[in-house]
């Protein structure tokens, strides 16, 4: 990051390459459309580039700092939109010739994606940061500006809701 603060584009490219994909997926859960998620990621990296020197002053890990920027951008984007755009299915079920296992997996993905999309925003964020982005509980709590206990409460409620939804769907 020191190198990035000095304008080193090579170092910056490494950071972008490492974090871009999970960041786009993170944003996608909020903004729903891939181009919008890519725009959020791009804006997050531009802010990182412009404020590289103040990173250490924030007291976060680099990853949690990037997610914090992206999270705030997503929330801003959602505030601009009314009503919230539903989460787009990331799985395309275009081929009717998929093997059964793959088809089943795709259906599961669709179900879980839909269930995630229905979670309250804070629960979904907590889950995404810890499960999909692999942030530590402290980093995830820092991104959301809450303490670890509050984060755990959100996580537990999110998982309970998802589990109930999956059971409901299985019983239908």
């Amino acid at each position: 990051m020191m190198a990035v603060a000095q304008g080193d584009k090579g170092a910056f490219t490494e950071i972008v390459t490492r974090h871009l994909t999970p960041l786009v997926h993170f944003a996608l859960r909020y903004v729903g459309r891939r181009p919008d998620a890519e725009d959020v990621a791009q804006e997050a990296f531009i802010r990182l580039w412009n404020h590289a020197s103040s990173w250490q002053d924030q007291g976060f890990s680099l990853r949690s700092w990037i997610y914090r920027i992206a999270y705030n951008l997503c929330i801003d984007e959602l505030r601009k939109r009314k009503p919230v755009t539903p989460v787009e299915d990331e799985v395309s079920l275009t081929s009717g010739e998929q093997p059964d296992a793959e088809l089943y997996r795709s259906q599961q993905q669709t179900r879980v994606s839909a269930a995630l999309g229905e979670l309250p925003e804070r629960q979904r964020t907590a889950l995404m940061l810890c499960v999909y982005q692999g942030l530590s509980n402290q980093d995830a709590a820092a991104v959301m500006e809450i303490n670890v206990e509050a984060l755990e409460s959100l996580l537990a409620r999110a998982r309970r809701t998802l589990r109930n939804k999956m059971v409901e769907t299985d019983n239908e």
Partner: protein
Amino acid sequence: MNSKMAKLISPERVVELLECYGANPEAWPDDERTTALALIQHSTELQNLQREAGQLDKFLTNAGMQEPADLELVSRIVNNLPVQDKAKNSGKRHGSTVAKRSLFEFSGWTGMLAASVAVFVITLSITDLHQSSSLQPQSIESQAELDYWMWQQVTGEADNDDDEEPATVLALFGLE
């Protein structure tokens, strides 16, 4: 490392960990992992809960499968970067360096020019002061007299009552 940091926790806390973070011990807080695993190893109930949590983890993992990094997007981001605000970036951490560099830069040819102008102005001032001092009448003895003489110099008023200096320019050159 974990054994060094291991924190004593209750079976209830293990249930909480499973409910919050799922079945994968890697997702649990570092300082609670070792003890939690030991408690699970000795409890069938906790093992069942871990298995249940693992099923949800599997769903979540499948739903979160990510496509590989979009290299085109990486290029787009890197190639469209704005000019970095160096002053903002280096201001906090390298403020003194920037200040020193500015001083150094100012001490180049612009500094030389500024110094030359300053010397010229000072020289002029000293010369003028010296000339003024030489015009100062030797007869001034009190502060009041000095003030009056200064007033005359500034306003151009002349006290011709008791001197013999010509009153006009023509008289000055003997043309009157």
